């Protein structure tokens, strides 16, 4: 995707240029299949490590924010202000016994957490961190971002079914029913953005916003639909009925423990991060912004959105299952169809 960037957006030093070390022939990575495999592997390791570290930060922030809202202190004992608490928790999870119910389906039980975490992490490939910087700018990047995480629905269903537990089974069914119901309005909201950007590549998306303005100003309704449906996709409150602690005992991952359980957790936070990052890319101009380098802008904007999702969790009560499905099919789906036609008019007015 060729994009004419305005001069003030060129921060070459933040691009992949740092890989061009004098003693490394970077062309080698792009000309050979084994070089490409290695490059992909390298980025996979980098992204996975980053997601792990981010999750640790989120857990701390979430506990502190919830404590603040509920008038508590939150973790205080381990390290100054409880900063080391998550680290200790990670060690605890790692050395905990891995219990699998005798009646569970061993293969599906092992496969399910992987089906949840791997697609969520793979979605990072197309996130436009900097203005020209995407880990790999696929031609169909935006579709990739929607298609690959959709595999998660299978993982949720498998996890619930494999556990041979009533709570898990119900949780898995609810989780994937909710997942597929909210996928359609969400995809239609993204379609309106594609109409305005004129390409499916994530770099082209930022380029189109550099030419016009943040798409949230042109398509406010699309943003509302995207934001609400995304909360439902990543099972966040107020849409966390599949894993409601008080009625389903954590739903599809009731029977999981230790490291395997933490994979579900990791997957959930990874998809929250990618979804928030893509909200920034789709509606808030990605890394576009004055003075500061694009990557900084991008991280700041994403942090604001994630923080908003965290605060919501402790502010709203959760929906009932029938309300949840009605909201998706009777409100958001018709709304997003109308929004498609509206977006057509906006597009004609702007271009």
């Amino acid at each position: 995707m060729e994009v004419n960037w305005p001069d003030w957006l060129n921060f070459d030093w933040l691009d992949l240029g740092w890989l061009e070390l004098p003693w490394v022939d970077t062309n080698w990575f792009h000309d050979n299949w084994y070089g490409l495999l290695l490059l992909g592997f390298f980025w996979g390791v980098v992204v996975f490590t980053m997601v792990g570290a981010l999750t640790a930060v989120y857990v701390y922030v979430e506990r502190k924010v919830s404590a603040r809202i509920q008038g508590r202190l939150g973790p205080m004992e381990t390290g100054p202000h409880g900063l080391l608490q998550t680290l200790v928790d990670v060690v605890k999870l790692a050395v905990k016994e891995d219990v699998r119910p005798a009646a569970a389906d061993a293969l599906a039980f092992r496969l399910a957490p992987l089906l949840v975490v791997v697609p969520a992490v793979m979605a990072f490939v197309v996130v436009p961190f900097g203005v020209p910087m995407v880990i790999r700018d696929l031609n169909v990047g935006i579709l990739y971002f929607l298609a690959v995480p959709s595999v998660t629905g299978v993982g949720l269903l498998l996890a619930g079914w494999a556990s041979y537990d009533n709570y898990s089974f119900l949780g898995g069914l609810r989780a994937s029913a909710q997942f597929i119901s909210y996928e359609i309005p969400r995809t239609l909201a993204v379609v309106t953005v594609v109409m305005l950007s004129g390409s499916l590549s994530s770099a082209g998306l930022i380029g189109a916003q550099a030419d016009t303005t943040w798409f949230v100003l042109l398509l406010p309704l699309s943003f509302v639909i995207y934001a609400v449906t995304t909360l439902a996709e990543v099972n966040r409150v107020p849409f966390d009925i599949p894993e409601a602690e008080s009625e389903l005992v954590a739903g599809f991952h009731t029977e999981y423990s230790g490291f395997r359980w933490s994979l579900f957790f990791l997957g959930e936070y990874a998809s929250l991060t990618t979804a928030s990052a893509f909200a920034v890319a789709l509606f808030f101009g990605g890394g576009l912004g004055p003075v500061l380098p694009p990557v900084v802008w991008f991280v700041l904007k994403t942090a604001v959105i994630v923080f908003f999702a965290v605060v919501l969790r402790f502010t709203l009560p959760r929906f009932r299952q029938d309300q949840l499905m009605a909201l998706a099919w009777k409100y958001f789906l018709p709304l997003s169809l109308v929004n498609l036609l509206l977006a057509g008019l906006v597009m004609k007015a702007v271009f």
Partner: protein
Amino acid sequence: MSEELLADVFFLLGFGVAGLMLPMVPLLLLRYIRPQHPSAVKLQPYESGVVQTTAPRRPFHMAYYNFALVFIVFEVETVLLFAVSPVLRDASWMDLLKAGIFVVLVSDGLFYAWRKGALVWK
């Protein structure tokens, strides 16, 4: 062009292998550290502290299947709109109308399902 796509596949394969290995390798290695003392009671499925009374894998609610069917139809619609949407920006009013007719056609299905009460969660 097609070479670039081939490069994408190798890159994604490498990425996917890393994504699979990073959860799996610790899981295998930690086997030597973590305790493993299974007992008959521990391996029972959880059911609020009592022995499981009903088997979970029994024929379940039809509503789920119902929604999944309608979902697939709309998913095919959104995918087709994805193909059309990038060219709409520089297209004429006529082209916009063609896409609009498609959207209205499929929306009819939604209204049919609505009127038949298929969107009610029972």
